[in-house]
Protein backbone atom coordinates (compact mmCIF):
# COMPACT_ATOMS: atom_id res chain seq x y z
CA UNK A 1 0.00 0.00 0.00
CA UNK A 2 1.44 3.31 -1.10
CA UNK A 3 0.91 5.03 2.25
CA UNK A 4 2.99 2.49 4.16
CA UNK A 5 6.67 3.09 4.85
CA UNK A 6 9.01 1.09 2.66
CA UNK A 7 12.38 -0.31 3.61
CA UNK A 8 13.95 1.56 0.75
CA UNK A 9 16.44 4.37 0.47
CA UNK A 10 13.78 6.22 -1.53
CA UNK A 11 11.80 7.04 1.61
CA UNK A 12 14.58 9.42 2.62
CA UNK A 13 14.27 11.32 -0.69
CA UNK A 14 12.17 14.43 -1.29
CA UNK A 15 8.44 13.80 -1.68
CA UNK A 16 6.44 16.99 -1.09
CA UNK A 17 7.67 20.42 -2.10
CA UNK A 18 5.59 23.16 -0.48
CA UNK A 19 6.81 26.60 -1.55
CA UNK A 20 10.54 26.44 -0.77
CA UNK A 21 10.16 23.74 1.89
CA UNK A 22 10.90 20.10 1.13
CA UNK A 23 9.69 17.03 2.99
CA UNK A 24 10.94 13.48 2.48
CA UNK A 25 8.53 10.54 2.44
CA UNK A 26 9.74 9.61 5.90
CA UNK A 27 9.16 13.13 7.21
CA UNK A 28 5.64 13.22 5.81
CA UNK A 29 4.91 9.83 7.38
CA UNK A 30 6.40 10.82 10.74
CA UNK A 31 4.53 14.13 10.86
CA UNK A 32 1.23 12.47 9.92
CA UNK A 33 1.73 9.73 12.50
CA UNK A 34 2.41 12.32 15.18
CA UNK A 35 -0.79 14.22 14.40
CA UNK A 36 -2.83 11.01 14.43
CA UNK A 37 -1.17 9.37 17.41
CA UNK A 38 -4.24 9.35 19.63
CA UNK A 39 -6.81 8.88 16.88
CA UNK A 40 -8.56 5.51 17.13
CA UNK A 41 -8.21 3.27 14.07
CA UNK A 42 -11.32 2.81 11.88
CA UNK A 43 -12.45 6.38 12.51
CA UNK A 44 -14.17 8.40 9.80
CA UNK A 45 -12.29 11.67 9.26
CA UNK A 46 -13.87 14.52 7.34
CA UNK A 47 -11.16 16.76 5.89
CA UNK A 48 -11.64 20.18 4.35
CA UNK A 49 -9.51 19.69 1.25
CA UNK A 50 -7.17 22.51 0.32
CA UNK A 51 -4.12 22.20 -1.83
CA UNK A 52 -1.77 22.52 1.14
CA UNK A 53 0.55 20.51 3.35
CA UNK A 54 -1.99 20.26 6.20
CA UNK A 55 -4.47 18.48 3.93
CA UNK A 56 -1.77 16.08 2.76
CA UNK A 57 -0.78 15.26 6.34
CA UNK A 58 -4.45 14.78 7.31
CA UNK A 59 -5.06 12.44 4.37
CA UNK A 60 -1.93 10.35 4.87
CA UNK A 61 -2.38 10.35 8.64
CA UNK A 62 -5.89 8.93 8.22
CA UNK A 63 -4.76 6.16 5.88
CA UNK A 64 -1.79 5.21 8.03
CA UNK A 65 -4.02 5.00 11.10
CA UNK A 66 -6.27 2.60 9.19
CA UNK A 67 -8.98 5.24 9.31
CA UNK A 68 -11.19 6.50 6.49
CA UNK A 69 -10.50 9.96 5.01
CA UNK A 70 -13.49 11.87 3.61
CA UNK A 71 -12.12 14.82 1.62
CA UNK A 72 -14.63 17.57 0.89
CA UNK A 73 -14.62 20.78 -1.13
CA UNK A 74 -12.87 23.56 0.75
CA UNK A 75 -15.53 26.10 -0.26
CA UNK A 76 -18.44 23.99 0.92
CA UNK A 77 -20.96 26.24 2.66
CA UNK A 78 -21.39 25.76 6.39
CA UNK A 79 -24.95 24.65 5.59
CA UNK A 80 -23.80 21.87 3.23
CA UNK A 81 -21.05 20.90 5.66
CA UNK A 82 -23.49 20.54 8.54
CA UNK A 83 -25.67 18.27 6.40
CA UNK A 84 -22.64 16.00 5.87
CA UNK A 85 -21.83 16.07 9.59
CA UNK A 86 -25.41 15.18 10.41
CA UNK A 87 -25.63 12.33 7.89
CA UNK A 88 -22.18 10.78 8.24
CA UNK A 89 -21.33 11.64 11.86
CA UNK A 90 -17.58 11.67 11.16
CA UNK A 91 -15.57 10.84 14.28
CA UNK A 92 -13.18 13.68 13.50
CA UNK A 93 -13.39 16.89 11.51
CA UNK A 94 -10.40 18.80 10.17
CA UNK A 95 -11.35 22.33 9.14
CA UNK A 96 -9.87 25.84 8.90
CA UNK A 97 -12.88 27.35 10.58
CA UNK A 98 -12.35 27.68 14.32
CA UNK A 99 -15.99 28.28 15.11
CA UNK A 100 -17.83 25.71 17.16
CA UNK A 101 -19.40 22.84 15.28
CA UNK A 102 -22.44 21.34 16.93
CA UNK A 103 -21.63 17.96 18.54
CA UNK A 104 -17.86 18.50 18.12
CA UNK A 105 -15.11 19.59 20.52
CA UNK A 106 -11.92 21.33 19.47
CA UNK A 107 -9.15 18.82 19.92
CA UNK A 108 -5.91 20.26 18.55
CA UNK A 109 -4.24 22.08 15.64
CA UNK A 110 -2.90 20.55 12.43
CA UNK A 111 -0.89 23.45 11.03
CA UNK A 112 -3.44 26.07 10.04
CA UNK A 113 -6.34 23.69 10.40
CA UNK A 114 -8.29 22.66 13.47
CA UNK A 115 -8.86 19.08 14.53
CA UNK A 116 -12.31 18.51 16.08
CA UNK A 117 -13.52 15.36 17.78
CA UNK A 118 -17.10 14.16 18.00
CA UNK A 119 -18.62 14.55 21.50
CA UNK A 120 -20.51 11.27 21.56
CA UNK A 121 -18.63 8.26 20.32
CA UNK A 122 -20.12 6.51 17.30
CA UNK A 123 -21.23 2.95 17.79
CA UNK A 124 -21.68 2.26 14.09
CA UNK A 125 -18.53 0.43 12.96
CA UNK A 126 -17.09 1.06 9.51
CA UNK A 127 -16.78 -1.90 7.14
CA UNK A 128 -13.31 -3.44 7.43
CA UNK A 129 -12.56 -3.14 3.72
CA UNK A 130 -13.55 0.54 3.44
CA UNK A 131 -10.58 2.83 2.74
CA UNK A 132 -11.77 6.19 1.36
CA UNK A 133 -15.13 7.83 0.74
CA UNK A 134 -15.46 10.35 -2.05
CA UNK A 135 -18.34 12.72 -2.89
CA UNK A 136 -19.75 11.96 -6.34
CA UNK A 137 -21.15 15.20 -7.58
CA UNK A 138 -21.69 18.88 -7.28
CA UNK A 139 -25.43 18.58 -7.00
CA UNK A 140 -27.19 20.49 -4.29
CA UNK A 141 -27.74 18.92 -0.91
CA UNK A 142 -26.40 15.67 -2.32
CA UNK A 143 -24.68 13.53 0.28
CA UNK A 144 -24.03 10.69 -2.17
CA UNK A 145 -20.52 9.28 -1.83
CA UNK A 146 -18.62 6.43 -3.36
CA UNK A 147 -17.19 3.73 -1.06
CA UNK A 148 -13.66 2.84 -2.12
CA UNK A 149 -11.86 -0.19 -0.71
CA UNK A 150 -8.16 -0.71 -0.01
CA UNK A 151 -7.98 -3.13 -2.93
CA UNK A 152 -9.71 -0.63 -5.25
CA UNK A 153 -7.30 2.18 -4.55
CA UNK A 154 -4.09 0.16 -4.40
CA UNK A 155 -4.75 -1.78 -7.61
CA UNK A 156 -5.83 1.25 -9.60
CA UNK A 157 -2.92 3.37 -8.42
CA UNK A 158 -0.40 0.69 -9.42
CA UNK A 159 -2.07 0.33 -12.78
CA UNK A 160 -2.00 4.08 -13.52
CA UNK A 161 1.65 4.37 -12.44
CA UNK A 162 2.44 1.56 -14.86
CA UNK A 163 0.76 2.99 -17.97
CA UNK A 164 2.04 6.52 -17.26
CA UNK A 165 5.46 4.90 -16.89
CA UNK A 166 6.13 6.79 -13.69
CA UNK A 167 9.40 6.34 -11.85
CA UNK A 168 10.97 8.15 -8.92
CA UNK A 169 12.42 10.85 -11.18
CA UNK A 170 9.02 12.29 -12.03
CA UNK A 171 7.69 15.54 -10.56
CA UNK A 172 3.92 16.13 -10.39
CA UNK A 173 2.01 19.21 -9.23
CA UNK A 174 -1.35 19.78 -7.52
CA UNK A 175 -3.23 21.24 -10.49
CA UNK A 176 -6.52 19.68 -9.28
CA UNK A 177 -8.21 19.62 -5.87
CA UNK A 178 -7.78 16.61 -3.57
CA UNK A 179 -11.53 16.24 -3.03
CA UNK A 180 -11.77 15.44 -6.72
CA UNK A 181 -10.76 11.84 -7.33
CA UNK A 182 -8.65 12.64 -10.41
CA UNK A 183 -6.70 15.16 -8.30
CA UNK A 184 -6.31 12.68 -5.46
CA UNK A 185 -5.18 10.04 -7.91
CA UNK A 186 -2.33 12.27 -9.16
CA UNK A 187 -1.12 12.52 -5.58
CA UNK A 188 -1.52 8.78 -4.93
CA UNK A 189 0.52 7.99 -8.04
CA UNK A 190 3.36 10.21 -6.85
CA UNK A 191 3.35 8.39 -3.55
CA UNK A 192 3.15 4.94 -5.17
CA UNK A 193 6.03 5.71 -7.55
CA UNK A 194 8.00 7.49 -4.80
CA UNK A 195 8.35 10.57 -6.99
CA UNK A 196 8.06 14.26 -6.14
CA UNK A 197 4.87 16.25 -5.65
CA UNK A 198 4.78 20.05 -5.78
CA UNK A 199 2.03 21.73 -3.74
CA UNK A 200 0.55 24.76 -5.47
CA UNK A 201 -2.85 26.29 -4.87
CA UNK A 202 -2.72 28.43 -8.00
CA UNK A 203 -4.60 27.71 -11.21
CA UNK A 204 -3.27 27.33 -14.77
CA UNK A 205 -3.91 30.98 -15.54
CA UNK A 206 -1.75 32.26 -12.72
CA UNK A 207 1.91 33.14 -13.12
CA UNK A 208 2.67 31.49 -9.75
CA UNK A 209 1.57 28.14 -11.11
CA UNK A 210 3.89 28.29 -14.12
CA UNK A 211 6.69 29.69 -11.96
CA UNK A 212 6.37 26.60 -9.75
CA UNK A 213 6.24 24.32 -12.79
CA UNK A 214 9.43 25.86 -14.15
CA UNK A 215 11.33 26.24 -10.87
CA UNK A 216 10.68 22.70 -9.62
CA UNK A 217 11.17 21.15 -13.08
CA UNK A 218 7.70 19.58 -13.14
CA UNK A 219 7.49 16.57 -15.49
CA UNK A 220 3.80 15.65 -15.20
CA UNK A 221 0.73 17.84 -15.73
CA UNK A 222 -2.89 16.77 -15.27
CA UNK A 223 -5.95 18.71 -16.35
CA UNK A 224 -9.66 18.66 -17.10
CA UNK A 225 -11.06 19.91 -20.44
CA UNK A 226 -11.53 23.58 -19.57
CA UNK A 227 -7.90 23.78 -18.47
CA UNK A 228 -6.79 22.59 -21.90
CA UNK A 229 -8.97 25.18 -23.60
CA UNK A 230 -6.98 27.72 -21.57
CA UNK A 231 -3.66 26.03 -22.17
CA UNK A 232 -4.08 26.32 -25.91
CA UNK A 233 -3.81 30.08 -25.54
CA UNK A 234 -0.82 30.11 -23.23
CA UNK A 235 2.69 30.02 -24.56
CA UNK A 236 4.44 27.44 -22.43
CA UNK A 237 8.10 28.41 -22.13
CA UNK A 238 10.82 26.30 -23.78
CA UNK A 239 12.29 25.63 -20.37
CA UNK A 240 9.03 24.16 -19.08
CA UNK A 241 8.60 22.07 -22.22
CA UNK A 242 12.12 20.72 -21.92
CA UNK A 243 11.28 19.26 -18.49
CA UNK A 244 7.81 17.92 -19.27
CA UNK A 245 7.46 14.19 -19.87
CA UNK A 246 3.77 13.47 -19.49
CA UNK A 247 0.59 15.50 -19.88
CA UNK A 248 -2.72 13.82 -19.18
CA UNK A 249 -6.35 14.82 -19.63
CA UNK A 250 -9.45 13.33 -17.99
CA UNK A 251 -12.62 14.57 -16.29
CA UNK A 252 -14.78 14.87 -19.37
CA UNK A 253 -14.68 15.08 -23.11
CA UNK A 254 -12.17 17.34 -24.82
CA UNK A 255 -13.21 18.47 -28.30
CA UNK A 256 -11.50 16.06 -30.75
CA UNK A 257 -9.88 18.93 -32.68
CA UNK A 258 -8.39 20.22 -29.43
CA UNK A 259 -7.17 16.72 -28.57
CA UNK A 260 -5.53 16.56 -31.98
CA UNK A 261 -3.91 19.94 -31.45
CA UNK A 262 -2.32 18.77 -28.17
CA UNK A 263 -1.38 15.35 -29.53
CA UNK A 264 0.54 17.03 -32.35
CA UNK A 265 1.98 19.76 -30.17
CA UNK A 266 3.27 17.48 -27.41
CA UNK A 267 4.40 14.75 -29.80
CA UNK A 268 6.63 17.30 -31.57
CA UNK A 269 8.23 18.09 -28.19
CA UNK A 270 8.67 14.42 -27.25
CA UNK A 271 6.12 14.67 -24.47
CA UNK A 272 3.56 11.90 -23.92
CA UNK A 273 -0.04 13.08 -24.10
CA UNK A 274 -2.70 10.82 -22.59
CA UNK A 275 -6.44 11.04 -23.04
CA UNK A 276 -8.02 9.19 -20.14
CA UNK A 277 -11.52 8.17 -19.07
CA UNK A 278 -12.93 7.18 -15.72
CA UNK A 279 -15.55 7.61 -13.04
CA UNK A 280 -15.45 8.21 -9.30
CA UNK A 281 -17.02 4.73 -9.06
CA UNK A 282 -13.90 3.26 -10.73
CA UNK A 283 -11.55 4.92 -8.21
CA UNK A 284 -11.30 6.56 -10.87
CA UNK A 285 -9.61 5.09 -13.93
CA UNK A 286 -11.29 2.99 -16.63
CA UNK A 287 -9.29 3.55 -19.78
CA UNK A 288 -6.49 5.51 -21.46
CA UNK A 289 -5.12 6.09 -24.93
CA UNK A 290 -1.47 4.98 -25.21
CA UNK A 291 0.44 8.02 -26.57
CA UNK A 292 1.74 6.10 -29.60
CA UNK A 293 -1.87 5.47 -30.66
CA UNK A 294 -3.10 8.99 -29.86
CA UNK A 295 -3.02 10.32 -33.41
CA UNK A 296 -4.70 7.26 -34.90
CA UNK A 297 -7.41 7.13 -32.21
CA UNK A 298 -8.48 10.78 -31.91
CA UNK A 299 -11.97 10.94 -30.37
CA UNK A 300 -11.56 7.66 -28.50
CA UNK A 301 -11.03 7.37 -24.75
CA UNK A 302 -8.79 4.36 -25.25
CA UNK A 303 -8.41 0.82 -24.01
CA UNK A 304 -9.20 -0.46 -20.49
CA UNK A 305 -6.47 -0.34 -17.87
CA UNK A 306 -4.69 -3.63 -17.21
CA UNK A 307 -6.84 -4.62 -14.23
CA UNK A 308 -10.16 -4.45 -16.03
CA UNK A 309 -12.19 -5.06 -19.16
CA UNK A 310 -14.86 -3.16 -21.03
CA UNK A 311 -17.91 -4.12 -23.09
CA UNK A 312 -21.24 -2.65 -24.08
CA UNK A 313 -24.66 -3.99 -23.13
CA UNK A 314 -25.42 -4.59 -26.79
CA UNK A 315 -25.77 -8.25 -27.93
CA UNK A 316 -22.34 -8.37 -29.56
CA UNK A 317 -20.76 -6.52 -26.59
CA UNK A 318 -19.21 -3.97 -28.95
CA UNK A 319 -21.88 -2.03 -30.83
CA UNK A 320 -23.57 1.07 -29.49
CA UNK A 321 -24.82 0.56 -25.95
CA UNK A 322 -24.10 1.37 -22.33
CA UNK A 323 -20.42 1.02 -21.48
CA UNK A 324 -19.87 -1.60 -18.78
CA UNK A 325 -16.56 -1.83 -16.96
CA UNK A 326 -15.39 -4.81 -14.94
CA UNK A 327 -12.32 -4.61 -12.75
CA UNK A 328 -10.69 -4.72 -9.35
CA UNK A 329 -11.10 -0.96 -9.00
CA UNK A 330 -14.91 -0.86 -9.16
CA UNK A 331 -16.03 0.66 -5.86
CA UNK A 332 -17.91 -1.20 -3.13
CA UNK A 333 -21.04 0.88 -3.65
CA UNK A 334 -22.61 4.18 -2.66
CA UNK A 335 -23.29 5.80 0.67
CA UNK A 336 -25.73 8.48 1.66
CA UNK A 337 -25.34 8.26 5.43
CA UNK A 338 -23.09 6.62 7.99
CA UNK A 339 -25.20 3.47 7.83
CA UNK A 340 -24.00 2.48 4.33
CA UNK A 341 -20.38 2.64 5.52
CA UNK A 342 -20.99 -0.61 7.35
CA UNK A 343 -21.97 -2.45 4.19
CA UNK A 344 -19.99 -4.91 2.12
CA UNK A 345 -19.19 -4.67 -1.58
CA UNK A 346 -22.43 -4.66 -3.56
CA UNK A 347 -20.99 -4.03 -7.03
CA UNK A 348 -18.87 -7.21 -7.24
CA UNK A 349 -16.49 -5.57 -9.67
CA UNK A 350 -19.08 -4.51 -12.24
CA UNK A 351 -19.82 -0.89 -13.10
CA UNK A 352 -22.56 0.30 -15.41
CA UNK A 353 -21.04 3.62 -16.36
CA UNK A 354 -24.18 5.37 -17.59
CA UNK A 355 -22.15 6.42 -20.63
CA UNK A 356 -23.23 5.23 -24.04
CA UNK A 357 -20.70 4.34 -26.72
CA UNK A 358 -19.08 1.61 -28.79
CA UNK A 359 -15.87 -0.38 -28.96
CA UNK A 360 -13.87 -0.67 -32.19
CA UNK A 361 -12.05 -3.72 -33.59
CA UNK A 362 -8.87 -2.79 -31.68
CA UNK A 363 -10.74 -2.56 -28.39
CA UNK A 364 -10.83 1.26 -28.27
CA UNK A 365 -13.83 2.87 -26.59
CA UNK A 366 -15.65 5.88 -28.05
CA UNK A 367 -18.23 7.63 -25.89
CA UNK A 368 -21.16 9.10 -27.78
CA UNK A 369 -23.50 10.23 -25.01
CA UNK A 370 -24.98 9.56 -21.62
CA UNK A 371 -27.78 7.30 -20.56
CA UNK A 372 -28.86 9.33 -17.58
CA UNK A 373 -29.26 13.02 -17.22
CA UNK A 374 -25.76 13.88 -16.04
CA UNK A 375 -23.50 16.64 -17.33
CA UNK A 376 -19.89 17.46 -16.51
CA UNK A 377 -19.39 20.95 -15.13
CA UNK A 378 -15.68 21.79 -15.10
CA UNK A 379 -14.97 18.12 -14.52
CA UNK A 380 -17.62 17.56 -11.82
CA UNK A 381 -20.59 15.26 -12.52
CA UNK A 382 -23.86 17.06 -11.99
CA UNK A 383 -27.23 15.32 -11.88
CA UNK A 384 -29.76 17.48 -13.75
CA UNK A 385 -32.74 15.60 -12.30
CA UNK A 386 -31.56 16.32 -8.78
CA UNK A 387 -31.29 20.06 -9.45
CA UNK A 388 -34.65 20.02 -11.16
CA UNK A 389 -36.41 18.28 -8.28
CA UNK A 390 -34.87 20.69 -5.74
CA UNK A 391 -35.95 23.73 -7.73
CA UNK A 392 -39.43 22.35 -8.19
CA UNK A 393 -39.95 22.98 -4.49
CA UNK A 394 -40.02 26.66 -5.51
CA UNK A 395 -41.99 26.37 -8.74
CA UNK A 396 -43.27 23.45 -10.77
CA UNK A 397 -43.13 25.46 -13.97
CA UNK A 398 -39.53 24.77 -14.95
CA UNK A 399 -37.18 22.29 -16.55
CA UNK A 400 -33.43 21.80 -16.18
CA UNK A 401 -31.40 20.77 -19.20
CA UNK A 402 -27.68 20.97 -19.91
CA UNK A 403 -24.56 19.96 -21.73
CA UNK A 404 -20.90 20.02 -20.74
CA UNK A 405 -20.10 23.16 -18.72
CA UNK A 406 -23.65 24.50 -19.06
CA UNK A 407 -26.81 24.06 -17.03
CA UNK A 408 -29.85 25.74 -18.52
CA UNK A 409 -32.89 26.37 -16.38
CA UNK A 410 -35.99 26.93 -18.47
CA UNK A 411 -38.57 28.93 -16.63
CA UNK A 412 -42.22 28.96 -17.69
CA UNK A 413 -44.54 31.94 -17.81
CA UNK A 414 -46.09 31.51 -14.41
CA UNK A 415 -42.96 32.24 -12.40
CA UNK A 416 -41.03 35.47 -12.71
CA UNK A 417 -38.85 35.65 -9.62
CA UNK A 418 -35.45 34.69 -11.03
CA UNK A 419 -33.72 36.10 -7.95
CA UNK A 420 -35.35 33.62 -5.64
CA UNK A 421 -34.15 30.77 -7.83
CA UNK A 422 -30.67 32.22 -8.05
CA UNK A 423 -30.45 32.56 -4.29
CA UNK A 424 -31.55 28.97 -3.75
CA UNK A 425 -29.04 27.74 -6.32
CA UNK A 426 -26.12 29.77 -5.00
CA UNK A 427 -26.59 28.36 -1.52
CA UNK A 428 -26.69 24.81 -2.67
CA UNK A 429 -24.31 24.08 -5.49
CA UNK A 430 -20.69 23.06 -5.27
CA UNK A 431 -19.67 24.20 -8.74
CA UNK A 432 -19.29 27.74 -10.14
CA UNK A 433 -22.61 29.53 -10.47
CA UNK A 434 -21.60 30.89 -13.86
CA UNK A 435 -22.27 27.46 -15.39
CA UNK A 436 -25.95 28.11 -14.79
CA UNK A 437 -28.09 30.17 -17.15
CA UNK A 438 -31.75 30.94 -16.59
CA UNK A 439 -34.04 31.47 -19.55
CA UNK A 440 -37.68 32.50 -19.64
CA UNK A 441 -39.64 30.49 -22.16
CA UNK A 442 -43.26 30.57 -23.26
CA UNK A 443 -43.87 26.86 -22.67
CA UNK A 444 -42.07 23.98 -21.02
CA UNK A 445 -42.41 21.18 -23.56
CA UNK A 446 -44.16 18.01 -22.47
CA UNK A 447 -44.86 14.79 -24.34
CA UNK A 448 -48.18 13.00 -24.74
CA UNK A 449 -47.90 11.31 -21.36
CA UNK A 450 -47.39 14.73 -19.78
CA UNK A 451 -43.72 14.07 -19.00
CA UNK A 452 -41.08 16.73 -19.72
CA UNK A 453 -39.85 16.38 -23.30
CA UNK A 454 -36.11 16.84 -22.77
CA UNK A 455 -35.16 15.77 -26.28
CA UNK A 456 -37.24 18.57 -27.79
CA UNK A 457 -35.97 21.16 -25.31
CA UNK A 458 -32.35 20.07 -25.81
CA UNK A 459 -32.76 20.48 -29.54
CA UNK A 460 -34.32 23.89 -29.28
CA UNK A 461 -32.36 25.52 -26.47
CA UNK A 462 -28.91 23.88 -26.23
Amino acid at each position, binding site marked *: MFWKSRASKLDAETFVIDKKKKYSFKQIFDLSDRYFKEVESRSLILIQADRDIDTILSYIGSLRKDSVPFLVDSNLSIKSLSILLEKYKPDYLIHKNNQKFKNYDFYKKIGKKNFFKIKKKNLIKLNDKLCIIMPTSGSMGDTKCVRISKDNITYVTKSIVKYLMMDNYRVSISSLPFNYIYGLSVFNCSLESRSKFVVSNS*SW*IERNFWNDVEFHKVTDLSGVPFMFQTLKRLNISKKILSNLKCVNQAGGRLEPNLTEFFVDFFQSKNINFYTMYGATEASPRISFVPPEKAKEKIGSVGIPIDIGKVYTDNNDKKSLGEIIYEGKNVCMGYAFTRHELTLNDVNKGILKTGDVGYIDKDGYITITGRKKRFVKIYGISVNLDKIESELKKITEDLAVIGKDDLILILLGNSFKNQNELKKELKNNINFPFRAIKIKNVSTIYKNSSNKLDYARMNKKFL
Partner: protein
Amino acid sequence: MSNKDKYDKIFMEVFEIAHNQLNKDLKYQSIEAWDSVGHMTLMAALEEEFDIQLEMDDIIDFGTYYTGIETLKKYSIDI
Protein backbone atom coordinates in the same frame (compact mmCIF):
# COMPACT_ATOMS: atom_id res chain seq x y z
CA MET B 1 -21.66 53.43 -25.96
CA SER B 2 -18.22 54.63 -24.84
CA ASN B 3 -15.36 52.18 -24.38
CA LYS B 4 -15.65 52.68 -20.62
CA ASP B 5 -19.31 51.73 -20.73
CA LYS B 6 -18.54 48.65 -22.77
CA TYR B 7 -15.70 47.70 -20.41
CA ASP B 8 -17.93 48.08 -17.35
CA LYS B 9 -20.80 46.21 -18.94
CA ILE B 10 -18.56 43.20 -19.62
CA PHE B 11 -17.45 43.03 -15.97
CA MET B 12 -21.02 43.35 -14.73
CA GLU B 13 -22.31 40.68 -17.10
CA VAL B 14 -19.51 38.16 -16.75
CA PHE B 15 -19.39 38.34 -12.95
CA GLU B 16 -23.06 39.25 -12.38
CA ILE B 17 -22.17 42.24 -10.21
CA ALA B 18 -23.52 45.77 -9.80
CA HIS B 19 -21.92 48.99 -11.07
CA ASN B 20 -20.91 50.06 -7.57
CA GLN B 21 -18.74 46.94 -7.29
CA LEU B 22 -16.51 48.18 -10.11
CA ASN B 23 -13.76 49.70 -7.97
CA LYS B 24 -10.16 49.32 -6.87
CA ASP B 25 -11.03 46.28 -4.74
CA LEU B 26 -12.25 44.29 -7.72
CA LYS B 27 -9.50 41.87 -8.60
CA TYR B 28 -8.79 38.24 -9.43
CA GLN B 29 -10.29 36.03 -6.71
CA SER B 30 -11.72 39.01 -4.77
CA ILE B 31 -15.17 37.69 -5.65
CA GLU B 32 -16.29 34.10 -6.13
CA ALA B 33 -17.15 34.62 -9.79
CA TRP B 34 -13.66 35.85 -10.69
CA ASP B 35 -11.87 32.53 -10.48
CA SER B 36 -9.82 30.87 -13.21
CA VAL B 37 -12.84 29.97 -15.31
CA GLY B 38 -14.35 33.43 -14.82
CA HIS B 39 -11.04 34.96 -15.80
CA MET B 40 -10.99 33.20 -19.15
CA THR B 41 -14.65 34.11 -19.74
CA LEU B 42 -13.72 37.75 -19.09
CA MET B 43 -10.77 37.58 -21.48
CA ALA B 44 -12.93 36.07 -24.22
CA ALA B 45 -15.61 38.75 -23.72
CA LEU B 46 -13.09 41.61 -23.90
CA GLU B 47 -11.49 40.15 -27.02
CA GLU B 48 -14.83 39.86 -28.72
CA GLU B 49 -16.06 43.30 -27.73
CA PHE B 50 -12.89 45.17 -28.71
CA ASP B 51 -11.89 42.83 -31.54
CA ILE B 52 -8.42 42.14 -30.16
CA GLN B 53 -6.29 39.08 -29.45
CA LEU B 54 -4.73 39.26 -25.97
CA GLU B 55 -1.19 37.94 -25.50
CA MET B 56 -0.51 35.21 -22.95
CA ASP B 57 1.39 37.58 -20.62
CA ASP B 58 -1.46 40.05 -20.67
CA ILE B 59 -3.99 37.34 -19.87
CA ILE B 60 -1.97 36.14 -16.91
CA ASP B 61 -1.22 39.64 -15.62
CA PHE B 62 -4.74 41.00 -16.09
CA GLY B 63 -5.21 41.08 -12.33
CA THR B 64 -7.62 43.88 -11.49
CA TYR B 65 -10.44 45.99 -12.85
CA TYR B 66 -8.14 49.05 -12.93
CA THR B 67 -4.93 47.50 -14.30
CA GLY B 68 -7.02 45.94 -17.05
CA ILE B 69 -7.54 49.44 -18.43
CA GLU B 70 -3.77 49.80 -18.76
CA THR B 71 -3.53 46.40 -20.44
CA LEU B 72 -6.08 47.39 -23.08
CA LYS B 73 -4.09 50.58 -23.83
CA LYS B 74 -1.40 48.33 -25.29
CA TYR B 75 -3.96 47.26 -27.85
CA SER B 76 -4.85 50.88 -28.65
CA ILE B 77 -8.13 50.65 -26.74
CA ASP B 78 -8.63 53.79 -24.68
CA ILE B 79 -11.01 53.25 -21.82
